[in-house]
Structure formats: structure tokens, C-alpha cells
């Protein structure tokens, strides 16, 4: 196993009697793009704040970049870029001035004369290179979000901890941020991203941790989570003929879509078999679990509703297999 950048053991945070984070063992490998997924109010932000030493744990241990947090958090923070619960800036100052102040308050790194360079570089990276001297007060939410991201990039972090980084961005902006994170990740930055948006994590991450009411209910590689179900999905203009040909192999049938138990030989063999029997094909694919199926199965109703029955394990919803995505 590769080196762990973030590791927690039995991490618990109680506010009053309620556990916001409950006995969480988190493992984020170096170089990963880790998606920390959970509904609002499930303890994601508290978790992020504990990793950064802003909130102190009630119980449990945290290790970030190999050092214990919060006792030695000051040593690791210079290597971390973070965005916690939305961006924040001094509203009467420009974006540039805000970044310059943030840069100046950090640990001394290089000459102050290079500050302008650093600030311009991160502004460029987040697409704010052309921003003028308007105060942040006049910025749109999307611009503020980009500014927050720029601040997180100031110390060329080895680890990026981002809490809901695409909030308030338009689809174009979301795509840009995603591309930026992939680029940074390719250059060696580990990305830890928390979100309540399935699609965002599915589109970006290599690993996923699912949190529900403070507990980590799943932690795995995204590819493993979205593994094949062992069935194939067949789409055809002539479902009657296909059903006749395949007989008892058909597990389910929805309109012109059939879910078929995989036969030896996989999709090519099935395709040949169907074509040989004169069944026209629109599409044929392996059925995979979607992240959504897994998460819904694991977490049940949202944390703000009454306690729902929790099912064990992930069972795929047949209607949402493979080809729908």
C-alpha cells in the first residue's frame, strides 16, 4: 500500500451529547483524489476542521502527512492548501490585496519580493488572472470561490483539503475547477475533497469515503465500488425476439432493455449469439453499480429525516445499470 497522507483512528467529535463525527478510521493514500461524500449535516465539515486543527477531537488520533494533529499541526499546515466551508475574504480589499495579505501572514517562504509573482500565478491558475482592483465585496459567488481556491494554492500544497469547492460555480466553472484539480493531482498533489454531490465525486475522484450521520460507512477505490455486477445490459429494438433467444438468462426486462446474466465469453459472445439469431442490437454493456446506488443503499434517508431502516451492503438498482450513464 502506498503511503498514507491522512490517517485517522477512532476519530470522534461530540458536541454536547451528539456525535458529529463518530469513530471514523480514514485512510487517504498519497497521490489519490479522495472524495469524502455525505449528505449535509453528516459531519463532513467537522471532519475537515479536525484534520486542519481548527476543531479539537473528543477522542481518537489524526495523522496528516505523517505528523500528529493537532499537536504538530503547525508543521504540516504549510504543506496543505485548504478551503473550508466556503471562501472568505476581507470585503473592502481587492482579490489581489486579499491574497497578498494571506501570503504575508503565512510562514516566511522565499523573499517577500516574490509575493506579487506568487499571487499572480495562483490568480492565473484559477482563472482570475484578469481580475481588476474591484473590492471583493462586488465579486460574484463564483469569483469568491475561485479566489478561495487561489488562496489554497498559495503555498504549493502537497495536500489539498477542499470542502465543497464547486459551490456557486456554473457548469463551465465546475469543469475548469475539475480540470485544475486533475492537473494538480497529476503533478503529485493529493486531493481530499468533501462534497454532498455524487456526480462531482464520481467525475473527479479515484477513491471515495461515504459518511452517514458521523460514521464512515464505506471507504474504497471508486472503481471497486462501481464494479461490474456480473450482468449485461442489452438494448434492442426487438426485445421480444431477444427474450425468446436468451430464454432463462434474462433476469429483468424494462421496455427495450434487458438485463441478462453473463454467459461465458462476456459481451462479445452474447453479441455474436444474438446477431446469429437475427436479433438487432442498439447497445450492449456490462452492468456496473453506480455510486448513487451504493450510497443510497448504505446511507438510507438523509440525516435530517427520522431514522430510516438501514439496509446492509450495496445492492444495485437494476434500472440504473451500465448504459443509463
Amino acid at each position, binding site marked *: 500500500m502506498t503511503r498514507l497522507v491522512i490517517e485517522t483512528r477512532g476519530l470522534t467529535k461530540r458536541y454536547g451529547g451528539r456525535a458529529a463525527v463518530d469513530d471514523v478510521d480514514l485512510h487517504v493514500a498519497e497521490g489519490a483524489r479522495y472524495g469524502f461524500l455525505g449528505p449535509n449535516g453528516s459531519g463532513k465539515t467537522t471532519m475537515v476542521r479536525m484534520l486542519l486543527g481548527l*476543531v479539537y477531537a473528543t477522542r481518537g488520533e489524526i495523522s496528516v502527512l505523517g505528523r500528529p494533529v493537532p499537536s504538530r499541526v*503547525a508543521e504540516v499546515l504549510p504543506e496543505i492548501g485548504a478551503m*473550508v466551508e466556503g471562501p472568505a475574504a476581507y470585503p473592502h480589499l481587492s482579490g489581489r490585496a486579499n491574497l497578498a495579505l494571506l501570503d504575508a501572514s503565512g510562514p516566511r517562504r522565499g523573499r517577500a519580493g516574490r509575493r506579487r509573482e506568487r499571487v499572480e500565478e495562483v490568480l492565473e491558475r484559477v482563472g482570475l488572472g484578469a481580475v481588476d482592483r474591484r473590492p471583493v465585496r462586488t465579486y460574484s459567488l463564483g469569483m469568491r470561490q475561485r479566489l478561495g481556491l487561489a488562496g489554497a494554492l498559495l503555498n504549493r500544497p502537497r495536500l489539498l483539503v477542499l470542502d465543497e469547492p464547486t459551490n456557486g460555480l456554473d457548469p463551465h466553472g465546475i469543469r475548469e475547477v475539475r480540470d485544475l484539480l486533475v492537473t494538480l493531482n497529476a503533478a503529485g498533489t493529493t486531493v481530499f475533497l468533501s462534497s454532498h454531490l455524487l456526480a462531482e465525486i464520481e467525475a473527479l475522484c479515484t477513491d471515495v469515503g461515504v459518511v452517514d450521520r458521523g460514521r464512515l460507512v464505506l471507504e474504497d477505490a471508486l472503481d471497486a465500488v462501481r464494479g461490474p455486477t456480473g450482468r449485461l445490459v442489452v438494448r434492442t429494438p426487438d426485445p421480444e425476439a431477444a427474450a425468446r433467444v436468451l430464454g432463462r438468462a434474462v433476469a429483468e426486462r424494462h421496455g427495450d432493455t434487458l438485463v441478462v446474466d453473463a454467459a461465458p465469453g462476456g459481451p462479445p459472445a452474447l453479441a455474436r449469439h444474438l446477431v446469429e439469431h437475427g436479433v438487432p442490437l442498439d447497445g450492449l454493456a456490462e452492468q456496473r453499480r453506480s455510486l448513487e446506488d451504493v450510497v443510497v443503499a448504505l446511507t438510507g434517508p438523509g440525516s435530517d429525516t427520522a431514522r430510516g431502516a438501514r439496509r446492509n451492503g450495496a445492492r444495485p438498482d437494476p434500472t440504473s445499470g451500465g448504459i443509463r450513464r
Partner: protein
Amino acid sequence: MIGVELVKLARRPRTWATIGLLCLLPTVVAVFLATTRISPPPGQGAAFLSAVLQSGSLYPAAALALVLPIFLPVAVAVVAGDAVAGESSQGTLRYLLVRPVRRTALLGAKLVAIVVFVLGAVLSVAGTSYVVGVSLFGAGDPVAVVRALPEVTGDDGGVAGTAPAGGPQSTSGPAGGQVGGSDASSSGGGQPDARDSSAVDPEAARERAQSSVSSLSGEALSPADLAARLLGAMGYVVVSMLGVAAIALFLSTVTTSSLGATLGALAALITSQVLVSLDAASSVTPYLPTRYWLAWIDFFRDPIFLRDITAGLWLQAGYVVVLMLAAWANFTTKDVTS
């Protein structure tokens, strides 16, 4: 970090608006005095005000007396109350802390920035009021003013310090100095008299005690001497504000509401002012933050009367140390959830 805090202070429009308003009040008062030439009657108005008509070069002292009771503490409480709570409610606190800025360093830098603000405010008030005073009243003979000050009577701890917001009054012009001079020994005798009536009206009794003026030395103040005394008074006023700053800064680490911290500090000050003027509370009076606020006037006695000044410095130092420790203990152990 201190540099960053100073830049933040300097680039904040509020800082300059506050200092501008602080300078405006003495200027307005000076304009009224100069156009009407009516000085406040004895026993009313701020210290030195009745005397500045004779000597504009002492107007900075009068200006300090004008802003000290309310304006300056309010300004300090606003800035100090906002120091941590403002960052917190704005959300910038979490970004500073993950930069990382150590919490202790942040608190220290905030305190330094507040001190610089008070210093700047007092210097600005003194500077503008000197210019205004000299240009409106002329640079008269400052010795007259020194004569007009009330003498410290008995072991009361200095009447100047005990006075409430209105401040001790120099009750007479230069002529009053001579009248008071013949009365110098009788001020001790006047004490029982004041005590008697204090049951009925402590305020009036206090005022009567204060109104006994004495002729101090008649030597003229050289400009250098005057400047030194002014600087001493300004320094003392700055230190007097540190207690307020410490109270507000401590509250600022407790709440995320700047307004709450500011109003809390002001409430503490008003309580202190009320208790200082309450004879029934005399057992706690020496420990109240505003107890020695007006001791800066002692810089204009001849010789400079140091007892209350020293006590005031120690008292403020105590408040700063205790409250900053409390602020530190609270801030370094608290969850930053804003």
C-alpha cells in the same frame, strides 16, 4: 504577523473614519469657543476648557479631556471588539489559522495593532487640536492654566481621578488661581464639610472639594516643559485605554459577534464609571478600570503628582495581563467553527 495586522488596520476605511471623528469633536468645540469667547462656567465642561481661551497651546489637553470619557473608549472598544470576532464572523479567521498563523501570535498581533490604533488616535487628536488651538486662541501663557488646576486634597487619592465622565473642572480662570491660593490650607478643613453633605448629594460634595484650587508654583512653563507634560499625558491616556482594549479583545475571543464584544466592553466601562462615583462602592473603587483615567491631569500640576499616575499604570497593566491571559487560554483551546 504584526505587519499584516497593521496593514489591515491601515487599509480599513473605518480606522480613518474613527480617527477623523475623534479629531472633529475638539475642533467643533474650539470653533464655538473661539467665535463666542464664552468659556464654560466654573464646575462645568471638561478640564482645561475654561482656560484655553488664554492659551491655545494647551488645547490638546482640553481635547484629550473631551474625547477621553466616551469617544476614545468607544473607538477602542469597536476596534478591539472586532479584532477576533470580526475575523471569525467574516470567515477569514479559519483561513488565517490554516495558513498557518499560530493562535497566540494572532492574538499578540491583534493587541499590538490595537495599541498602535490608540496611539495614532491620541496623536491625531493632540496634533489637530494643537493646530486648531494655536490658530484660534493663539499661543498664550500656559502658566495660567497650571495655576487654575484643582489641588489634590487629603488622602482621597486625588480628586481628579474620582470624578465621573464629566471630568474634574478647572473652575476658574487665571484670576481664580489667586483666589484659590489664599484657600490652599483651608482645603483640608473643607474636607469634613464635604463629607457631611455627601450623604445628601455626594456629587455636589465632590465638586465642592474639587473647587478648592491652590496656587501652585507661579513659574512659567517653557515650551519644552509643556511638550513633555503633554507627551506624558498622552502616553498615560494611551495606557488608560489598554484596559478597555483588553476587555474587548477578551470578549472578542469569546463571541463571534463584534458588536457583542464591543457592547460588552462598554457595559463594563459604564459599570465601572457608575461604581467609581458611588461612595457606597468605595471598597472596590481602587480596582475599577476607569478609577485612574483622569490622573493624566496630574501631569499639569507643579510638581507633577505621580501617585495616581503610578497607580493607574499598575492597574491597567493588571487588567491587560489578566485579560490577555484569559483571552489566550480561551482562544488557543477553542474550536473554530465559524
